[in-house]
């Protein structure tokens, strides 16, 4: 005896209902006639709050400005070395370019705190106290453009989620960057650089939360291969240690 027509209807209805539930969690959008789901409503993880960079790796290259010509760990090209060898922070300051190490590719490895909040239903705002920078991560159909900037144009979307606790990733692609430094001592990235980020949220059994951020910077001019570095942030209970400081080209 095969499955009856009634059974098939029950199975189909159940699976449709079930898939719709997944779709909502994964942010696939709304059904016909419904308003589009917002990025905030479909977020599989909550990244809002105050986070602090925990500098347990590359301390000597991230916490302080290393010596001129120190390119260790970065897959630079010969052209990048030429620019880095000529690094002159005083000249940068005089030219009003003291924020060159505070563009998105450098900023996310910096010794900073981040305040993350929703600017609106489809824009996640990431502020840093280090250099007082603001990144806007745009979901949906947002199109960038205009003049290049330190933080560039960032397009975001959610990936995964909905299949168990802790799932879901924020994927961000950034372009239209104003040329800057990957490292405070003048290791350059060009106007053609792009940055891909994967933001994952980790909750420990103690309740402590950490962001594991994988950064991949691609630059045909100054990098021989994509610079691939993970960093991590710890959530803080409040912003009591928030300490805004302007860009500083030297320290």
């Amino acid at each position, binding site marked *: *005896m*095969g*499955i*009856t027509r*009634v*059974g*098939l209807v*029950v*199975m189909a209805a*159940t*699976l449709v209902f079930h898939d719709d539930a997944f779709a909502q969690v994964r942010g696939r959008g709304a059904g016909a006639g419904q308003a589009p789901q917002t990025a905030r409503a479909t977020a599989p993880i909550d990244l809002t709050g105050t986070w*602090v*960079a*925990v*500098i*347990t*790796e*590359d*301390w*000597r290259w991230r*916490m*302080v400005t290393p*010596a*001129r*010509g120190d*390119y*260790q*760990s*970065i*897959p*630079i*090209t*010969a052209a990048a*070395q030429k620019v880095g060898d000529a690094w002159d922070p005083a000249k940068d300051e005089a030219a009003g370019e003291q924020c060159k190490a505070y563009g998105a590719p450098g900023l996310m490895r910096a*010794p*900073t*705190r981040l305040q993350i909040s929703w600017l609106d239903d489809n824009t996640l705002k990431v502020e840093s106290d*280090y250099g007082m920078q603001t990144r806007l991560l745009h979901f949906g159909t947002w199109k960038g453009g205009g003049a290049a900037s330190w933080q560039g144009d960032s397009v975001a979307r959610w990936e*995964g*989620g909905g*299949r168990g*606790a*802790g*799932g879901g*990733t924020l*994927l961000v692609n950034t372009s239209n960057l104003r040329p800057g430094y990957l490292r405070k001592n003048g290791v350059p990235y060009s106007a053609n650089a792009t940055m891909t980020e*994967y933001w994952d949220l*980790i909750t420990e059994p103690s309740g402590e939360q*950490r962001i*594991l951020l*994988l950064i*991949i910077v691609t630059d045909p001019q100054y990098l*021989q*291969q994509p*610079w*691939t*570095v*993970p960093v991590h942030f710890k959530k803080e209970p409040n912003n009591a240690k928030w*300490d805004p400081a302007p860009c500083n080209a030297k*320290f």
Partner: protein
Amino acid sequence: MVIRSVIRSIALTVVAVAVAASPAAAQVDFQGQWGAVNHQEAMGRGPGPDLADYTGLPINDEARHTALSYTAAVLGMSERGCMFYTENYLLFAPHNILIERVNDPVTGDILAWRISAGGSDRAPITVWMDGRPHPSPNAPYFFSGFTTGHWEGDRLVARMTHMKRGIMRRNGVPLSDKATMTLHLTRHADILTIMGIIDDPMYLEEKLVLTGSYRLNPRGNAPATNPTCFPFTELPVYDQAGAVPHFLPGTNHDADTFAKQYGLTLEAAYGGAATIYPEFRKRLQTTYQPPASCTRYCCGGGGLNLQASGINCRAR
């Protein structure tokens, strides 16, 4: 008859929904050869860290004093020659790895994931996925520890206990046998990132978090198994009774070499929880004196061929 068919259909539906809704046995496939991407800590992971460079480690005074008493000559002893190779070495080693899935031969379920030693003297890590409990705290401790895993979304979380005493950094910063380690394995496209959270009540003021990334490499050749560290006598003098190479307090002649080399205070060079947060920079602002230019280990990492790249730079 119709009622029985309806019941059977509903039952099938429930099963189908349950299969679709529950986490799959393997939500992400980690199998394969993974090439290490050493785009951070290239010196520490490759040639090795400077002596008395404890930057970035939230260690306590006990760890600091133990580290300052360390000399690499101790590795010449057959008794201590393998002390570097506890499983946390995965988090600061430069090597490629192979990850294998171990299936139950009858059910096909995943019994375990196995992370190879990557050609190092570390033992492979077996991450048991079958729900077995951790041994009693009084059970024997091994260099391979004991690890169980579970899925959190698409991330594999592995908790390790029962490690032997080892190191946190290759310049002698100690890890106690009270330490535990949680690994988070995350795959995005062809990049695998392993984040390790180490808790050591003996030597850490707070948890130590380390990360490393790997790129899928179909041409990789990291072996599934290799001989783990085999102790032998390198220098017979070190195996004589009473001859344990060490520095007594205050006698380590390299205690401040690293700090002076890079213009740091000893407070910064010696680590500690306070030094790993941004606010510590304020204590450096008036004291930090960077070298005029880089003089050693200025380039490298990521397997670059510097000469072929046209880069003229001190790689050592």
